[in-house]
């Protein structure tokens, strides 16, 4: 539990259960990422031509959206530690707004691909693309739900010394989503 303005040295922020959950999630994503990399090695030509159908600038915009939401969530955590709950709620709402840019871009990309007939059964690249990015997309949606729940908790000023650890755990989940994306983005959108 963290109640001071600055985190205590050598103390794990958030709950241990959340860290174990994050490790489990990272393991699942590692298997999916490796499956993508190995299949890419087996079918380099197919992956190069299929990847060229994706727009890397959209991928960059999604990256910036997720990272900016991560910054705002981290700043909200700083405000909670300073017992400024309302400021934290505003920052979390801003994080949700920025994160919704990712959702809009991703849905636009999915709609475009489906319209072009590039669904999950089109070829091996798109099968893995839909599984990998779809699984990550679901995590983003869950992360947004958690941020929204934290925002309403902060707005009601129901965050205190006893709930600060829970707040940190919720924000950690969002950072895990960011962490996965920074590896997923170059692998799916750039490495041909």
């Amino acid at each position, binding site marked *: 539990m963290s109640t001071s303005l600055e985190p205590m040295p050598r103390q794990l*922020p958030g709950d241990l259960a959340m860290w174990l959950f994050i490790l489990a999630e990272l393991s699942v994503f590692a298997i999916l*990422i*490796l499956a993508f990399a*190995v299949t890419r090695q087996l079918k380099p030509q197919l992956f190069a031509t299929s990847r060229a159908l994706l727009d890397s600038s959209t991928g960059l915009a999604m990256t910036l959206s997720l990272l900016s939401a991560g910054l705002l969530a981290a700043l909200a955590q700083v405000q909670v530690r300073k017992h400024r709950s309302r400021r934290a709620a505003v920052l979390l709402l801003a994080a949700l707004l920025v994160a919704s840019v990712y959702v809009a871009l991703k849905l636009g990309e999915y709609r475009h691909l489906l319209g072009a007939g590039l669904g999950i059964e089109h070829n091996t690249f798109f099968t893995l693309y839909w599984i990998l990015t779809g699984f990550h997309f679901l995590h983003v949606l869950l992360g947004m739900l958690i941020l929204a729940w934290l925002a309403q908790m902060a707005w009601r000023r129901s965050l205190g010394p006893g709930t600060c650890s829970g707040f940190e755990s919720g924000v950690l989940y969002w950072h895990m989503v960011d962490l996965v994306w920074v590896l997923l983005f*170059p692998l799916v959108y750039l*490495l041909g």
Partner: protein
Amino acid sequence: MPTSIFLLLCWLALTCLSLGTVMLGQGALILLLAVAKAWLITDGFMELRHGPQRWRWLLLSWALVLAALVGLSLAANT
């Protein structure tokens, strides 16, 4: 340095590295940039710079090992 300023610097570095990744576009260097971004997220945003070293290295090695394996798969094709 105040935590808020530190977080802003982390975000600025993450933004620059993301732009650099797209500008480079190809090659093993963008995997190194991905590891650098992962380090900024774990040490900066997740505050593991203040956390137990085992957890810090565990999360950083997740990115490092994955990037290395992806890099090896790239090298096998060339």
